């Protein structure tokens, strides 16, 4: 009878993806293409925010969009109607995008000629937080109807994002959403996070968000 021996493995399970993400980021730096990974629950307003953001910035920056819709081309069509290049990734029900999928999308659109590419990640606050997409910045949207307690339920997403957009502030009156409590929870998880309150419906706050992008793109290139 052979005896059981112990072997040290000491390897990071996600190292392949992390490495792919790192390489992608290097390439984006070389190409000077600023990529924003946009994450939220389903329906928090990713596509609507994108549409508003595009109309604010499309005269200044060459913008592209990668859509990770689970199964439809609805969102990609909406983006294309604005005259912006949108690539639809077939995520096949994947719960998140990983770096190699994002790279496929970027290669598909010839991202090196773009200044700014948005990646609309799969609507989900859990899995996208775990997998580095290779994007330059991570932005999450939390919409007012979802409640101010989300940082407690999905802490990882909040620790991984650079910007939090609080969307649908036009609905504030209808809820007991406590912005101050939310901000407190957010700083406890991630004190470097920039919080911007917006309404993609009325356009309120979109100028601040566009300014954030302008200065981030400027710093990047």
């Amino acid at each position: 009878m052979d005896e059981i021996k112990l072997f040290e493995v000491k390897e990071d399970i996600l190292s392949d993806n992390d490495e792919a993400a790192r390489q992608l980021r290097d390439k984006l730096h070389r190409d000077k293409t600023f990529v924003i990974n946009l994450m939220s629950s389903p329906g928090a307003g990713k596509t609507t925010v994108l549409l508003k953001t595009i109309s604010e910035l499309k005269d200044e920056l060459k913008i592209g969009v990668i859509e990770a819709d689970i199964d439809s081309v609805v969102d990609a069509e909406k983006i294309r109607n604005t005259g912006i290049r949108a690539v639809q990734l077939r995520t096949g029900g994947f719960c998140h995008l990983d770096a190699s999928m994002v790279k496929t999308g970027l290669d598909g659109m010839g991202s090196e000629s773009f200044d700014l590419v948005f990646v609309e990640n799969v609507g989900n606050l859990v899995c996208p937080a775990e997998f580095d997409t290779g994007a330059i910045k991570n932005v999450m949207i939390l919409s007012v109807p979802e409640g101010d307690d989300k940082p407690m339920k999905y802490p990882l997403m909040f620790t991984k994002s650079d910007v939090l957009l609080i969307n649908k502030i036009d609905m504030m009156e209808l809820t007991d959403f406590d912005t101050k409590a939310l901000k407190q929870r957010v700083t406890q998880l991630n004190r470097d996070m920039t919080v911007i309150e917006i309404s993609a419906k009325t356009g309120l706050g979109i100028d601040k968000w566009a300014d954030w992008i302008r200065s981030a793109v400027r710093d990047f290139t």
Partner: protein
Amino acid sequence: MFPYKARLYSIQNVRINTCAEPKLFLSFTNPVLSYNVAVKLEKKALHKTIEKNYKMHELPVTESILSIILKHAEKNRVSRVVSITLQIGELSDLEDEWVQHYFDYLSKDTAAAGARLKIERIPVMVKCGNCGETTEISKEELGSINCPQCGTEGDFSLVSGRQYYIKEMEAI
């Protein structure tokens, strides 16, 4: 396979907020091999899957575990892997049961077939930006406590709790 297809498409409208939508998990058309794996799971497992809010990213994670383990098995010239010890951060949303399920499926006919996965959970540790003390806290406390050392409100950075790590394996 066809009977499955019919029933799986019938659950496509289930809305689940933790992970992806079920139907495509079971899609036949997906080019990536891993999705087909889920389709081939036992009927019982499928039912469980549906009940269990769809655990999806366990799949790529498990694939990655297997490929790393097989590499080490080959390097060490072992004939059979008996157990694998993982270290997973408390903040990582990974369900032990599902990782084992997928592993059992994926590892068939490999040196790692039948290996048992032991999962060690690594606690969440935060460092206070004011006093520099490192404290272990629960996932629930994240975002809602002051520094236990100096009382400063919410000035933490995360030092541990997101690990996805393979520590060791036992093999013959």
